[in-house]
């Protein structure tokens, strides 16, 4: 009966050091369905799917695919069994062309030699299918390093599809995708379902689950809680199952004061053109709009990582010329990058060190001597403040779940008492609960008097968290939203600025004195 399921995982256990990732999880799914795996960060859903794809070897447990036991010793074995995965951390070779990446590991051969023509025939249909997601082009020969994050994610999806899988695992695959890219992906997912493929789907976006999934298994604390049919469960119950006991979103109270902390005038850098705005102490200012409209460049320029072409930055009445991140840190500007793996954390180093890094200098005796006791005390205080769960402060950061890692990226700035905190999409790919906790941390930073600038790919986050939101389009600030106007609907329509040009003009005209009045570009 139960053994008739297409994919079956029973009693899977996995421990990393002191943290139990999977505690006897069971899982079953049928071919020709789209099956969501839901749960808070650290609930073990990523680990469960990594056991399936052979990236992680379980301590215990069994996997059966189509009635046959699967004991993969690595991704090679699972690839042969017809399992393909799109990972959260990308599995692409930056220096390779898109084509070379798509066929990596499955290069067609003719007389022992790689057959590029056949590789092209294999890969092109998928790239063409996703052309719309690449902005209408088919980037076969472009280098992966030259693509933007969303496009790389699409390449990753194509790479999984080229392998013609029977089971396709999408682990947080939509997190960095734009709306249009997601739509194309979902069309393809529906086609795959028709042809009998099992699609396993990890996401934190409720709308996506409702749009494309047939069934869902909810995980918590390393084991499965319940498996439901999406159509039979009301939306509110789903949210409750996903989030657990914590309330979804608490409305936050503004801690903004009247004191202008950061004054930016005519700043141009990278993609950003002529940005003028002010942030007050204790205020949380959001940067909205479609992805890649200059939000990251604005934050990088403020942090001194990107050289401005023009404009002035004034911090507490003093002109700042941050030519390097080091100077910015000295001026008490903190930066939380979007890519926590490569920019925000030393993944292999202990949690303690990661906490201590930005502030070590100020606790050092005579500037050089570090006391372990003092470091520990400082780290514990922060860990408690942001309620991070960890095995030991000496464990590497990589043993923590994504949500907890991200809280450390934010929390490590606390002891420096920053005056300005810059955050580049900090909640990307973390679950509702961790997100709520992270936002709590952000509000605490603001309450302590910091001016917070935050970009987010999810408009709902901005509405929940921010006092005021600047909407960017093609590098320009095109709208400023606050108070009652601060809703998802306003943000979405403002972000589409150009396509709804007339409406945008009308709204900005009624909005009070926006120093950066929209300058329309003819498209």
């Amino acid at each position, binding site marked *: 009966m139960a053994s008739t399921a297409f994919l079956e995982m029973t009693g899977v256990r996995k421990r990393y050091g002191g943290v139990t990732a999977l505690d006897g999880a069971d899982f079953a799914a049928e071919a020709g369905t789209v099956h969501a795996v839901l749960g808070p960060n650290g609930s073990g859903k990523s680990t469960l799917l990594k056991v399936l794809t052979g990236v992680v070897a379980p301590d215990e447990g069994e996997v059966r695919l189509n009635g046959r036991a699967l004991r993969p010793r690595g*991704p090679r074995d699972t690839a042969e069994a017809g399992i393909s995965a799109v*990972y959260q951390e990308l599995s692409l070779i930056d*220096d390779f062309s898109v084509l*070379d990446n798509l066929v*990596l590991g499955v290069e067609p051969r003719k007389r022992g030699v*790689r057959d590029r023509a056949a590789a092209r025939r294999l890969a092109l249909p998928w790239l063409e299918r996703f052309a719309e997601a690449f902005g209408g*082009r088919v980037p076969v020969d*472009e*280098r992966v390093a030259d693509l933007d994050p969303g496009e790389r994610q699409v390449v990753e999806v194509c790479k999984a599809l080229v392998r013609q899988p029977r089971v396709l695992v999408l682990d947080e695959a939509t997190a960095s995708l734009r709306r249009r890219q997601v739509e194309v992906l979902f069309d393809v997912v529906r086609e795959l379902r028709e042809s009998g493929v099992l699609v396993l789907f990890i996401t934190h976006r409720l709308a996506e689950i409702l749009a494309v999934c047939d069934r869902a298994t909810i995980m918590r604390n390393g084991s499965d809680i319940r498996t439901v049919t999406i159509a039979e469960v009301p939306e509110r119950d789903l949210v409750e199952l996903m989030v657990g006991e914590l309330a979804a979103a608490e409305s936050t109270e503004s801690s903004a004061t009247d004191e202008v902390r950061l004054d930016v005038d005519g700043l141009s850098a990278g993609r950003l053109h002529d940005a003028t705005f002010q942030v007050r102490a204790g205020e949380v200012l959001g940067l909205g709009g479609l992805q890649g409209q200059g939000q990251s460049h604005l934050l990088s320029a403020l942090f001194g990582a990107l050289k401005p072409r023009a404009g002035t930055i004034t911090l507490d009445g003093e002109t700042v010329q941050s030519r390097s991140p080091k100077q910015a840190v000295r001026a008490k500007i903190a930066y939380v990058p979007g890519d926590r793996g490569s920019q925000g954390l030393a993944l292999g180093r202990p949690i303690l060190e990661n906490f201590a890094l930005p502030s070590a200098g100020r606790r050092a005796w005579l500037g050089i001597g570090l006391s372990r006791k003092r470091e520990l005390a400082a780290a514990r205080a922060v860990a408690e403040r942001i309620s991070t769960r960890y095995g030991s402060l000496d464990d590497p950061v990589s043993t923590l779940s994504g949500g907890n890692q991200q809280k450390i990226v934010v929390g490590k700035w606390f002891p420096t008492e920053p005056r300005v905190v810059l955050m580049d999409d900090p909640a990307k790919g973390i679950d509702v609960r961790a997100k709520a906790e992270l936002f709590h941390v952000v509000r605490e930073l603001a309450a302590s008097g910091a001016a917070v600038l935050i970009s987010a790919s999810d408009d709902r986050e901005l509405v929940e968290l921010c006092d005021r939101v600047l909407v960017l389009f093609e590098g320009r600030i095109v709208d400023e939203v606050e108070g009652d106007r601060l809703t998802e609907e306003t943000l979405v329509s403002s972000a589409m600025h150009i396509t709804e040009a007339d409406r945008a003009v009308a709204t900005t005209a009624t909005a009070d004195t926006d120093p950066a009045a929209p300058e329309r570009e003819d498209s």
Partner: protein
Amino acid sequence: MNTLTARAGTSVSNLTRARMPMVATTVLLIVTVTAAATLQGNFFTPYGMTANFATILPIATVAVAQTIIVLSGGIDLSIGTIVTLSSVVTVRLMDGGDPSQVPLALAAGLATGAACGLFNGLLVAVLRLQPIVATFATSFVFGGVALLVLSSPGGTVPAVLTGGYRQVFAYLVPVPALLLLVLWLAWRLLRAQRIGQYLYAVGGNAGASYASAVPVTWVRVFAYTAGGTVAALAGVALLANSGSGDPFIGNELTLGSIAALVIGGTRLRGGAGGAGGSILGAIILTLIQNLVFFAGVPTNARELVNGAIIIIAIALAGLLTARSERAGRSEGRTA
């Protein structure tokens, strides 16, 4: 429309960026060849060509061997002693000058090189020792075994090899130059295989390769084994050039091979570059040494001048590569 032109711009700069290291290497090659032809009167004569290519071939071969390893993300500090060990094994087996022993001796030399490489590969890929430390240690092992096989310089190499090595075809094409061409063709053939692509993949991002079902461990072992085998070929070339065996004959080639591949545009942390550039790098490196000699630099100052010029060459190659990479990264962020 804006994005279209931007895209076109990106792909053009992509092209130049990919070619950047090659451009730097070619410029260096032209400069050194011109200087050599000016200073060395007999440069473009059969004698000059033979003499130059006879010295270039061994270092170029070791550079190719090292390139295979470095591309896969490793490094081999024992490669010079592998050259030595396989050459002394070869010379011991063909000592006496009987031409009929030559094939067996060559096969044994190649097998020795392959075995040394395999040993390195197992240490690095299976036992996961740090490549620098592991191969530093094995360099003493291989060097020590070489001393046991041939304790002092000696042994004669059959005339078939030494004579053949000095042949010149069509007035200006010496045999070592032809062998260099064969070496490059063999590299192109390797590059066209799956394994050739996997060297780059593993060196570029081992984790991503593993997740893409590339046999990472096997690729690493292969790289070291292939490198050891090619290094053994360099040992044979040295024998043919010098005419006798020497238990230290190749030891100095290790760092030369690394310098040559860097000048040739191969990235030391792996994943980018190629053996073609390394061959050019070896040519440049050898010509620089000759130049210092022919320019009449006093004997005691030669090492110093030689070193200074190599630093300039490496810096030039490195600067151009680094700049092109930086451009690539910042553009990637913008796009």
